[in-house]
């Protein structure tokens, strides 16, 4: 395929879409599917056929529409955009019969697309959600897909491409925020005949579903980003390491790879250049620690996912000891827009130190749960109260938890901090991959800490002692606090142990496992101290010497 052929394909697809007066885009992501969007789809299909609208109305399964808590969601694209929530088969029929046929909207199911949930967001990674068919490469191409790859391999030198990414200031979206361009540059400069590109799609944080939504709704975006990484560093093989818990994402990825290979957008001599790139999928098997890069690479090679001491870093010695780029899904999803729109465009979004946007999965005790994308630096308050609509009536906001089991709880008094890598760290949390769980007064923070510690304990690989045994003891101590059996001394030891596990563990899992405990102690110390037991004191001469 050449660039011209790509543009022709895009044009044809756009023409094809234009023949429809209206398009019904139903959410086909896992969230709405479990809410019954399959039967909604069937009913739409039936109704369209019955009304003989096959030529004027197209039914499309699209990516996540955001408001997952109100699904199944359906977007109707005609003269304007109309978004419907809680759509069941009956509503689906009404949408066809009333909205499509007579132009009369089904008002009781309508959501305002200009409401604060939507207007405060800025979509880059999620730009195609609700626009294209998640299973069609043509629709991705019609939306500008693979243009960036074409531009990169035909017009740019690898170092120019990396230069763009560096100028854009893109930082790793997996949580640590390492500059992506810098990472790529290290791999590019290392001398090796074989190099690899790996995509970390092992989204293991409980309470996070950003990467899943991207893979389900717009898989080509990730493949395109990976291919550009391959071009930039000189790799011809990529692996996507995806959780087994995401069967739909795996299916869509497989399909996307097949389609891309068929069109020659992956494979040998892409865009008739010297660049070849293949992508294979590796399916994880349920181990949170495999989100740690050295563990992930071992898992890709069919081993136990046990981390290795760094250095050497994967950029020097990764898969099969070859230089390896490893980034997460969202990072790769940002590459194509940067190349398409230029680094200056990207750098202007967000903050100076953390440019761009961040996708969050908003959940917990909050009115609007779902998938959102916001510019970096947005105040936390705005995310929770404007976009999320605050906590349900009658309950009061207590804390927002970010960063999953590696993160911390941010209390009320810090609601005004900007959401970026550095600011979150100052309050003892981390950006993490993007899970944001809101807690209200019904959550006991010691119990919350115990919940996360149980997770870390179960997920510890068992290699290093501080994490293997330390997390177990922290968990037991928290349980002791909850049972009102811990003393002041135990509480002091708990804190000492947390710091020790943090500073001596081998990998990120152990080093960050105490964070939820330390952060809840920092902001909700009272909840611990009221549960402590007073130690028995020696009272001379008043003892009851009975036996």
């Amino acid at each position, binding site marked *: 395929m050449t660039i011209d052929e790509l543009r022709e394909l895009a044009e044809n697809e756009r023409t094809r879409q234009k023949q429809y007066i209206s398009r019904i885009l139903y959410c086909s992501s*896992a*969230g709405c*599917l*479990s*809410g019954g969007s399959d039967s909604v789809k069937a009913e739409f299909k039936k109704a369209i056929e019955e009304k003989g609208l096959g030529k004027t109305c197209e039914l499309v399964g699209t990516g996540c529409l955001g*408001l*997952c*808590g109100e*699904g199944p969601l359906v977007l109707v694209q005609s003269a304007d955009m109309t978004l419907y929530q809680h759509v069941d088969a009956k509503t689906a029929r009404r949408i066809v019969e009333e909205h499509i046929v007579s132009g009369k909207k089904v008002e009781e199911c309508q959501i305002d697309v200009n409401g604060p949930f939507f207007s405060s967001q800025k979509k880059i990674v999620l730009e195609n959600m609700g626009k294209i068919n998640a299973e069609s490469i043509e629709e991705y191409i019609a939306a500008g897909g693979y243009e960036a790859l074409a531009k990169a391999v035909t017009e740019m030198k690898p170092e120019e491409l990396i230069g763009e990414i560096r100028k854009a200031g893109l930082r790793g979206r997996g949580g640590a925020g390492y500059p992506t361009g810098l990472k790529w540059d290290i791999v590019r400069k290392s001398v090796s005949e074989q190099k690899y590109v790996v995509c970390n799609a092992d*989204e*293991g*944080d*409980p*309470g*996070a*579903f950003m990467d*899943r939504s991207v893979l389900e709704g717009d898989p080509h975006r990730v493949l395109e980003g990976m291919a550009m990484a391959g071009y930039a560093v000189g790799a011809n093989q990529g692996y996507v390491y995806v959780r*087994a*818990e*995401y069967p739909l994402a795996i299916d869509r990825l497989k399909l996307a790879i097949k389609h891309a290979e068929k069109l020659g957008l992956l494979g040998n001599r892409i865009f008739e250049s010297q660049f070849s790139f293949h992508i294979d999928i*590796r*399916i*994880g*098997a*349920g*181990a*949170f620690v495999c989100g740690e890069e050295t563990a992930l690479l071992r*898992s890709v*090679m*069919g*081993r*136990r*996912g046990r981390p290795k001491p760094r250095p050497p870093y994967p950029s020097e010695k990764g898969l099969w000891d070859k230089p390896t780029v490893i980034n997460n899904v969202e990072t790769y999803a940002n590459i194509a827009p940067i190349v398409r729109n230029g680094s200056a465009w990207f750098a202007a979004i967000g903050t100076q130190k953390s440019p761009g946007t961040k996708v969050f*999965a908003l*959940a*917990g*005790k909050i009115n609007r*749960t*779902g*998938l959102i994308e916001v510019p970096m630096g947005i105040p936390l308050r705005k995310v929770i109260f404007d976009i999320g609509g605050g906590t349900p009536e009658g309950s009061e906001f207590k804390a927002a*938890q970010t960063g*999953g089991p590696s993160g911390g709880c941010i209390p009320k008094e810090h609601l005004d901090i900007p959401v970026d890598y550095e600011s979150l760290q100052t309050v003892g949390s981390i950006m993490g991959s993007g*899970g944001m*769980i*809101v*807690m209200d007064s019904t*959550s006991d923070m010691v119990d919350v800490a115990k*919940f*996360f510690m149980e*997770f870390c304990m179960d*997920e510890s*690989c068992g290699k290093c002692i501080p994490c293997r045994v330390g997390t177990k003891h922290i968990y037991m101590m928290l349980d002791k606090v909850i049972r009102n059996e811990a003393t002041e001394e135990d509480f002091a030891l708990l804190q000492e142990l947390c710091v020790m596990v943090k500073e001596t563990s081998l990998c990120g899992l152990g080093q960050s496992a105490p964070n939820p405990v330390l952060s809840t102690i920092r902001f909700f110390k009272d909840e611990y101290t009221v549960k402590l037991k007073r130690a028995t004191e020696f009272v001379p001469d008043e003892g009851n010497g009975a036996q």
Partner: protein
Amino acid sequence: MTQQDGKKSAHPSGDNRFKLLDRAITKHQASGYSLIEILHVAQGIFGFLENDLLMYVANALKLPPSRVYGVATFYHFFRLKPQGEHAFVVCSGTACYVKGAIEIQKVLEHECGCKFGETTKDGSVSLITARCIGSCGLAPVGVLDDVVAPKLTPDEALRRVRLWKEQKKEVAA
């Protein structure tokens, strides 16, 4: 069957399912690096990973048995024991926790007389926790025999389990 003989032959039991497994092994060129992929396939075919099956994989991929066993036990997804007729998965992700998944777990354990991670004595229901299935917007979430049940309540969970039990009784009758 020993590690040293190196020959790949049909399983002595004559079980045809091994042909399917062999096909996957050939596709991966019998590479030891594909162990996790092969274990996924094997579990998909056989339902769970028996020692005998793991030994077959070890021989085919020319890996030490202890390595294969180590990998199979490291990952939560691999089962070394058969599952019950029905699987009730309760998501234990943070969003589900905040929205009361623990209450659901409690009533189910009480109803089934076994803990999560176990199967009822009659082999009818396996209780399983999942580490976040990524449907946090619909918390708390269960997965009943691969079908997602959103915004689950303890009562609804009980109703569903009892339904399985009744079906079993009917079949028995």
